[in-house]
């Protein structure tokens, strides 16, 4: 699915959280959304998921506007994973996956649930309550939920935050493999620059609600004369903008 954002603005009273951002993600590409804390990434994702009403601007998914009348239909092709949201803790992993499979209107519920269980190695804790899992296990379950509807547009907000390097690598590798086998466009917000370099085709740098730079990781590194994306990020984040 193609995602296009045009002149998106979000104002919370007098605070300009997102200031006229525009970008496009072509089908099957992964775009990294980078920026320091409070730069407007989560608000932007919230608007793209239809959870926050933009003050102005438009969002198109496969050229269909994400307005209230189209929202439900478009949401069935989308999904989202973030360590800051959770699945019901008192329900088992299988129950949670079953419920979300039903909520996304899947017909072959058992088949899809079993596929996700096998793919993400969830068998061992399938009947455990989700709240009793370790962060790594929870993260894999959240990823399974975010892929249960075979989304064609996936939003990932810091998908490997708080994971140990081994599980973090497992998640990144799984996303890479999944993307090779399935049609999937990803918008990835992350503070892990190595993750961004590995997964993203292009990157957008945000600061104070605005897009301050964009390009491939290599282009940005070269443009700012740095050795890696982390240094490039630091240079952009610490530079004084016109707003300051």
């Amino acid at each position, binding site marked *: 699915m193609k995602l296009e954002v045009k002149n998106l603005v979000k104002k919370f009273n007098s605070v300009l959280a997102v200031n006229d951002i525009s970008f496009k993600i072509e089908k099957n590409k992964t775009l990294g959304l980078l920026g320091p804390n409070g730069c407007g990434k989560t608000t932007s994702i*919230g608007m793209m998921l239809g959870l*926050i009403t933009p003050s102005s601007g438009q969002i198109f998914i496969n050229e269909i506007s994400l307005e209230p009348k189209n929202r439900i239909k478009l949401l069935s092709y989308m999904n*989202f994973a973030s360590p800051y*949201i959770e*699945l019901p803790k008192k329900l*088992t992993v299988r129950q949670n996956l079953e419920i979300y499979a039903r909520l996304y*209107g899947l017909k072959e519920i058992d088949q899809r649930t079993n596929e996700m269980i096998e793919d993400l190695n969830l068998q061992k804790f399938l009947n455990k309550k989700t709240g009793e899992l370790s962060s790594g296990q929870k993260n894999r379950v959240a990823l399974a939920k975010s892929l249960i509807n075979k989304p064609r547009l996936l939003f990932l907000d810091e998908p490997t935050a708080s994971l140990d390097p081994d599980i973090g690598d497992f998640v990144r590798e799984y996303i890479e493999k999944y993307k090779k086998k399935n049609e999937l466009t990803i918008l990835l917000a992350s503070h892990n620059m190595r993750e961004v370099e590995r997964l993203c085709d292009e990157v957008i740098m945000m600061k104070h609600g605005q897009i301050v730079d964009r390009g491939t990781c290599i282009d940005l590194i070269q443009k700012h004369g740095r050795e890696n994306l982390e240094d490039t990020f630091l240079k952009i984040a610490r530079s004084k903008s016109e707003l300051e």
Partner: protein
Amino acid sequence: MNWNKIFALSLRHVYLIKGSFPRILDLIYWPTIQIFLWGFISKFFTLNSTFYENTVGVILSAAILYDFLFRSSISYNMMFLEEIWSRNFTNLFIAPIKLSEIIAALTFTAIFRTLIGLVPAALLAIPFFGVSIYKLGVPLIFLLITLYIFGVTLGLLVTSGLVRFGPSFENIAWASLFFLAPLGCIYYPVEILPEWLQIIAKLLPLVHIFEEMRNILIYDIVNYSQIIKATFISFIYFVIGVITFYLSYGGAKNRGTLINMGE
């Protein structure tokens, strides 16, 4: 409306209840305590008052009906709060579900939770106090439906507050019904209230429901126009509740509070 999605939302709460014995016990415990408390108070009144011939029956029936209203509303609020407490709110609102489906699922599941608590308590009242709510006969069905509509409406108004103000509105959720109880004239006739308060009280369906209950139990008269009036008032409040919920949801989307809502 997609009934499969409504079923899925209800199933989430059924799994939650089914998976926890203390939760089931909690649902049964409070209505039972309420019945026993009012049962003994009523018995005391019977021995010391000549006003009602059937005090135990009237007061205890009122307690059961009021508890039905209370449980309906609290069940509705609790199910919504569960989503906030479990930080599942965002997942729910990014799933392709219409607001009307969420309202329908909460409404249907609330009756399930309510009955788990109230049926055992109402049955216990028969052997312990010789009071059967079923003595109200066919009108009981209409009284329960009316109470249920109003209970769900109160639930809708409180959940609107939760959507609008976030988890900090939780305390209001618990207090909402106690606020209405004195005006509802559950245990006493409306004439007890000062005149100006009677006018306000009559705007609530509760007064008509409980007046009717007393009419049936004391005078053995069924006044269906009173029941229809109560149902009509409840339905108007329900429509107001639905509109308020939609407005709160729109407001929450404007303020960006739907993302990352939780405790």
